C-alpha cells in the first residue's frame, strides 16, 4: 500500500524553484532554494539542489549524492520517459534525498513515477486531487522490482 501524500499548500515558498510541489511523500523540510544544472552541480562543490534535463547523464551526479538534498527531474513532455530511468538510477545508487518530478506530469503517470523512486511531484498544471489519490493507489501489487522496494507478485507467490 502507498502512503498518503501530504498536500503542500506552501508550495509557492520554494525560493527560486518555479515549480509548485503538489504532492510530497516526505516528512523533512523542503529545500528552500533553487536548483542548478547538472554541469553546474559537477563544477560547484556546494550545490545541494540540482535539476536533471532529459538529455543529461544522470550518472554524472553519482559522486555528489551525499551532499544533494533535492534532485528535480524535468519532463518537458510526458512522452519522454528518460526521467524514469534517471530516477531509478539515483535510487539504485543510494540517493535518499527528495526526488521530484517536474514539468508535464499527468495523473496517469503518477503510479509509475512513484515506483521509480519519485517522492515529490510538481506538475506544470495542478492535478485533480481525487484523481491523483486514485492514481497513486492504482496497483495493489506489482510484477517487477523497482525503486520502491515493494514485494513483487513473483515474490509473494513464493514466500
Amino acid at each position, binding site marked *: 500500500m502507498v502512503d498518503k501524500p501530504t498536500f503542500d499548500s506552501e508550495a509557492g515558498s520554494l525560493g527560486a524553484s518555479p515549480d509548485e510541489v503538489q504532492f510530497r511523500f516526505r516528512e523533512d523540510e523542503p529545500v528552500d532554494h533553487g536548483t542548478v544544472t547538472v554541469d553546474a552541480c559537477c563544477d560547484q562543490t556546494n550545490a545541494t539542489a540540482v535539476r536533471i534535463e532529459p538529455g543529461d547523464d544522470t550518472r554524472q551526479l553519482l559522486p555528489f549524492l551525499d551532499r544533494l538534498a533535492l534532485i528535480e527531474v524535468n519532463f518537458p513532455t510526458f512522452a519522454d520517459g528518460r526521467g524514469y530511468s534517471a530516477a531509478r538510477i539515483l535510487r539504485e545508487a543510494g540517493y535518499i534525498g527528495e526526488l521530484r518530478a517536474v514539468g508535464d506530469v499527468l495523473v496517469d503517470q503518477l503510479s509509475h*513515477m512513484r515506483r521509480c523512486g519519485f517522492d515529490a511531484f510538481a506538475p506544470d498544471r495542478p492535478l485533480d486531487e481525487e484523481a491523483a489519490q486514485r492514481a497513486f493507489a492504482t496497483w495493489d501489487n506489482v510484477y*517487477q522490482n523497482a525503486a520502491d522496494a515493494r514485494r513483487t507478485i513473483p515474490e509473494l507467490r513464493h514466500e
Partner: protein
Amino acid sequence: MYAYDKYDQAMVDARVEEFRDQARRRLEGTLSEEQFKPLRLMNGLYLQLHAYMLRVAIPYGTLNSRQMIALADIADKYDRGYGHFTTRQNIQYNWIKLEDAADILADLSRVEMHAIQTSGNCIRNISSDHFAGAAHDELVDPRPYAELLRQWSSFHPEFTYLPRKFKICVIASEKDRAAMRLHDIGIQIVRNDNGEIGARFYVGGGMGRTPMIAPMIRSFVALDQLVTYAEACLRVYNRYGRRDNKYKARIKILVHELGAEEYTRQVEEEFAHLLDVGVEPPRAELERIKEFFADPAFEDGPKTLDRSDPDFALWVDRNTHRHKHDSYVSAVISLKPVGGIPGDASGDQMRVMAQLAEQYSFDEMRITHTQNVVLPHVRIADLHALWTALDQAGLGAPNLDTIEDMIACPGLDYCSLANARSIPLAQRISERFGASGKTAKLGELKLKISGCINACGHHHAGHIGILGVDRKGVENYQLSLGGSEAEDVSLAKITGPGFTENGVIEAVETVTDVYLQRREGEERFLDTYRRIGMEPFKEALYD
C-alpha cells in the same frame, strides 16, 4: 496453457477500471484527445479512418476455446461480425465505439485476456513460435520464458514511455517460424556446451522504413538472469534511443548508430549493475510457470493416414506440421481462402475453430504471425474428421505457405497511415493464381504486402514483397524480391520503378514465370532468386 492466479486477474481488472475512468473523462471532455491518446494506446485503442480499432493481445499467440468464443462474441456484439488476426499474433476489431471499449475490456478480463500494451511506445505483446510445445524440432517449449517476460513487461514502471514501440520474440528451435531476428529483441533459447539451457539475445532488428536484421549481442544468458539482461537492454535504449525523430527512434537505429559492439558494452555494464541491484524474479517463478505448459496426455495411436481422398491428401501435405509425438500432427487452419481478406475470421468461424480445438486439440489454438490458426495437437487418427469439419465451415483452404497464403496489412481500407490498398490486391492475386492452378506449381512462395513504409505487412521479408507508395496522389506499388524472415533471414531488394495495381499483378506473374523457367530441382522461388540474382527478373520486368 498458462492460467491467471488472483494476482494476474487483479492486475487486469485494475487496468479495466483505470481505463473505464479514463474513457469516461475523455467522453466528458476533461481529458483532451492529446492527453487521452497515449492512455488509449496503452490499452490497444487506435483511432482509424472510420472508427476506433481495438487490438487484443493473445500472449505468444496461444489461446483456448473459451477465449476464442469470447473473441467471437465481441466480434458479433461490438463489431460487424468479424475479427482480424494480425502479424503480431493478436486480433483486432475495426469498428469499435469508444463508449463500448471499457465493456469489451471487461468481457476480455473474464476470460483472462486484455488489450494491455498492444500499442503505444511500450513493450508489446511477446511473440513466439506458433508450434511451441508441439514442434518436433524444438529444444524446449519457449512459452514459459515468454510468459515470464510478459509479466515483467506488463506495466513496467520504467519502460512505459520508451522512444518507440518495442517488440520481443522468444523461440527455442533452430528453425525460425516467428521472424525472431526482425524483432527489437529476439531471444533464442539454446543449450550451451555444458548442457545448460539459456537465452541467446539478438537486439535491434525490425522492419519499417529502415529494415534491419538483429545482430547477436550475447550468445548465452543464464536463465536466472534473463529478466535482468532484458532490463539492461531496455534501460540503455530508454536512456539513449533517439527521441528527436520518430523514424529513427526504434532500437535498431540506436544499435546501428552506436554499433553492435558499443551497444553491447553498455548493456553489459548496465547488466552488471542490475545484477547487484537484484531485479530478477525468484527462480521458482519460472518453475511455477513451466508447469502450466506441461505436455497434455498424448496417447499412442495410428501413425499413418488413408490418403485415398486427393483433396484431403493435399490439405495434409500443405497444412500440417510434424509433431514431437509421432501419433500427432499440428494442423494449420488457413485464414486465406481464395479471394478472402487475409487473417479475417467471422464470429461463427471462430466458434467452429474453438469447438474443433476442444474436440481435437486439447482445447488449444495458436495464432501464427502469418495470420492463420493452428490446432497444435491433433491425433493423426482424427485428421480426416477434422478436415471434413473445417472444409464444411469454409476453413479448409489447402494453401499454407503458397502464394495464396499472403500476409497483407489492413492498408487504405482501414488504416489512416496507408498510401495504398493492400486487401483488394491480395484478393485479386489469390483469385488469379488460384484459378490458373499456378499456386500448386509454385510451391512455397511467401508474398507479403504492406500499404505503406511502416511495413506491417512484412514486405521486406517476403520472397516477393509489395509496398504501397503514393506517387503524385496515385496508388503505386513497389515490388521487391528475395526477403526471408526464417532462419535464413534476409531483406528483400526493390526490383526498380513501381507499378499500378494491375501492373503489379502482372509483375508478380512475370517474376513467377522467370522462376518456373529457371528453377533447378527442388528449388523454391527464394532459392532460385538467390542463385541467379536480380538481373533475370529485372530484365523480364522492365525490358
